[in-house]
């Protein structure tokens, strides 16, 4: 009694953390993410030994490394998903500022690893790609600004977030990293769309894009050639895309068998950008179908849960994160099957890459935190006869 009165024994108000988390978390999305990560490790077992051999490492060096980074990413994801949206917002804003400063500082202290574009920071043996961490932070900040503009007397968040987006896109394009730049731009567009972009504007932009595209196609030989090359069903068998196409074709429905694939020997990016080709060759269409279904499940389920969400910030931030996550996956796979023009982009959780997997862990952690089921005030609707 005394202890209780004087507070020397902590009194638990409400449920303990874990049961509350378990009850509220979106278990389907969580399982999908875990399954994707497991598939990534499985494919890494097949895809990375040739690379390890080229770099004179143990055969499964990269698998072990990926498991370590992935484990870290899982921890980050679980911890993040236990936070409340408000804490997530605060940390994400701080993270965004840090990542933004890091991206700005890249030209002075970054390295390019001989790949031509300065995108990496070298931190005592660890190389970090700050733009990977900029994306989730940016989504949260943009969603916050956008939702603030929906309050009466709120700041003009749409304009401010647009200015911020333009600045980031410009900086990323100067690196140059058009992939990340377009992802950031896409994230902002999705948020703006859900926050209520005027329909007229959307139709106008779509029309303008079509017009400008066909104009460029008619008048620029270079542009037309690239598009023709992309539309052309024949693919040069000596390019990465050609190898990927061949691998998918070889794999057929059920694959050539575990470890029997050839494409990992010839593709330099077999473990990152073209891992889906390795999957298709060794395990066939079946595994690809599963992978795509998992990504689709994550995004569609998250969007469904967010459509019930009443807090505008949570709705917008969650939408941005879910869409960016799955668009990245979509672009990666779209390139491999030549639905999209070539662009290097990793497959979240499946591709090899430390920065990428940890950033994906943060994204999914935040998304899970946002999609947790919480009281939405439906009872208030019933009392006040508001709502639908």
């Amino acid at each position: 009694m005394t202890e209780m009165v004087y507070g020397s024994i902590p009194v638990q108000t409400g449920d303990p953390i874990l049961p509350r988390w378990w009850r509220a978390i979106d278990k389907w999305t969580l399982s999908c993410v875990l399954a994707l990560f497991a598939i990534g490790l499985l494919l890494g077992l097949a895809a990375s030994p040739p690379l390890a051999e080229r770099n004179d490492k143990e055969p499964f060096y990269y698998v072990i490394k990926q498991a370590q980074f992935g484990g870290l990413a899982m921890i980050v994801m679980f911890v993040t998903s236990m936070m409340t949206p408000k804490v997530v917002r605060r940390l994400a804003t701080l993270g965004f500022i840090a990542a933004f400063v890091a991206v700005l500082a890249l030209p002075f202290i970054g390295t390019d690893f001989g790949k031509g574009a300065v995108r990496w920071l070298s931190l005592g043996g660890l190389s970090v790609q700050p733009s990977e961490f900029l994306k989730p932070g940016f989504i949260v900040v943009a969603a916050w600004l956008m939702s603030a503009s929906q309050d009466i007397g709120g700041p003009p968040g749409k304009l401010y977030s647009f200015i911020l987006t333009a600045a980031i896109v410009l900086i990323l394009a100067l690196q140059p990293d058009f992939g990340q730049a377009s992802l950031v731009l896409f994230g902002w567009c999705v948020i703006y769309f859900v926050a209520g972009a005027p329909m007229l504007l959307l139709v106008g932009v779509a029309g303008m894009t079509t017009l400008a595209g066909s104009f460029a196609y008619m008048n620029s030989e270079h542009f037309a050639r690239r598009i023709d090359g992309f539309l052309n069903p024949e693919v040069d068998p000596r390019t990465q895309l050609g190898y990927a196409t061949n691998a998918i074709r070889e794999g057929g429905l059920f694959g050539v068998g575990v470890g029997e694939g050839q494409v990992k020997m010839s593709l330099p990016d077999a473990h990152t950008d073209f891992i889906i080709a390795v999957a298709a060759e060794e395990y066939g269409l079946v595994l690809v179908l599963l992978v795509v279904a998992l990504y689709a499940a994550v995004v569609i389920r998250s969007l469904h849960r967010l459509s019930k969400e009443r807090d505008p910030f949570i709705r917008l931030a969650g939408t941005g994160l879910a869409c960016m996550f799955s668009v990245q996956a979509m672009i990666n796979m779209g390139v491999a099957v030549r639905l999209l023009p070539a662009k290097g982009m990793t497959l979240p959780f499946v591709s090899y890459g430390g920065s990428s997997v940890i950033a994906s862990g943060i994204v999914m952690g935040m998304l899970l935190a946002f999609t947790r089921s919480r009281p939405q005030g439906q009872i208030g609707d019933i009392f006040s006869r508001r709502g639908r």
Partner: protein
Amino acid sequence: MIRTPLRPLARILNARQAGENPDAIEAENKRIRHEAMRDTDRVRAESRLYILGGCFFFAFTAIILKMGVIATTLPEEPQVSRSGDPILSMRSDIVDREGRVLATNFDTYAVYAHPRDMIDPEVAASELARIFPELDEERLLKDFTGNRSFVWIRRQISPEQMQEVFDIGEPGLLFGPREMRLYPNGPVASHILGGSNFGRESVDSAEIVGIAGVERQFDDYLRDPANGGAPLQLSIDLTIQAATERVLAGGMMLMNAKGAAAVLMDVHTGEIISMASLPDFDPNNRPTVLTQGDQSDSPLFNRAVQGVYELGSTFKILAVAQALELGLVNPDTMIQTQPAIRIGGFAINDFHSYGRENSVTDVIAKSSNIGTAHIAEMIGGERQQEFLRSLGILDVSPVELSEARAGRPQYPRDWTPINTMTISYGHGVAASPLHLASAYATLANGGRLVTPTLIHDASNTVGERVISETTARQSVDMLRQVVTRGTASFGEVAGYEVAGKTGTADKVRPTGGYYDDKVIATFASVFPASDPKYVLVVTLDEPNDTTGSEPRRTAGWTAVPVAAEMIRRVAPLLGLRPNIETPLMTGVSLASE
């Protein structure tokens, strides 16, 4: 839009009377409005989220479908990824019209290092510096002992060098097989072949990419595995190309020129038999692009195709041919050649005075600017422009060289009467020697349009008729007289009936205006005149013949003797029989009689 006020006056007054705080009313109204706004937002967002979800669903479905289509179609082409060594013998050879090799592939090795596997980096560095003197030992040692895991040493090495590297016995030095492009004839035909470079490259293979000339123009063809290694056959004749280059180099040296170009073309097919530009280079070891100064001074610059020059009086025959074709003159029509024409503060003058009147034939033979300008006046600017365009002189040459696009002819945007006159004697339009050769070929073959080509193909033929056969015949006859009694008397080659026209154009100053002492001297010739088969254009850049008492720069003294020597050397190689006059048999009795 009508808005409900947040502070409705009536209610506030009532509240004041009742002693309540009116701020509460404002807060209440604000809350209601906010909630209504949120509700509409939420409803809209809900539908838009479903739209987004739908989009994603369709996109993922599309990926699956495409993947399914790929996975269920059978492989149609040989699996390059399966063949043992995908890099060897991939690029087709290039051969001349007789099948002699101009460019081929050569198996070689690259040498690279894995410093981590090195036993003795110091010995390796010093030995490598000994084998490859251009490598720096300290730099190598730094690379080998630092934390780099991979170091390129050389991209191509000879078998002897490979053996020597092998003999170092260092396990950290490794070889990667690759192909290199080899041009066995060195600088011969260098501007036509262009050159190649390594594209994407890994340790065990490298892609060869054409970067200039036909290597670039036909890059896709040469790399296409579907050709099965069939060589690309050019219209060039290696022997004649070598002779052309040799004579041109000698002439360039004798005439103190800084550059020279020659084009030899078959008038009946448009095939280019030889084409040279000096200074040249060795495509096995392409020089780097100039970083400063004028790119046209670089050995990489193809003067025959990329260089557009005002080609001077060689254009006169085009004006005369058009006037003949239009029936404005005949070869004997007298044309005024005195006095000088003054038009718009500009004087058209001749090199010497040729008397008051000359026949059209003499205008060409003596090369009278005044006479040609009068003829051009009769033709008029519009028809002149149309005629030059029909000959292809005003458009980019269609020849199969990637550099041809850089040789875009220059001509005045508004074709004034002054332009018409100056263009008739080759000033005001700048074109490449190849353009000129094609135009002369059209005159020489009886008036059918010639499309220059570098590809040997039995189907190459002349195009539509541009001028009548009679006009063409008369033009060639006039050109023949330029050699027999006109400005190109040094052009006579016994037995080959050379016909041609000289052209000496002052060079344009980069700052505007013309140089007094720098010219482009050109001789465009056709041979043999009685049945024209070939066109040869020789151009010298800034020639200066100093053997006489005063420097001589005109084409008759510089380009013509060079061209004559070239014909003397090349005509027998082309298989032309000299047309020798039968000696009179007086006082000779043959043994057979």
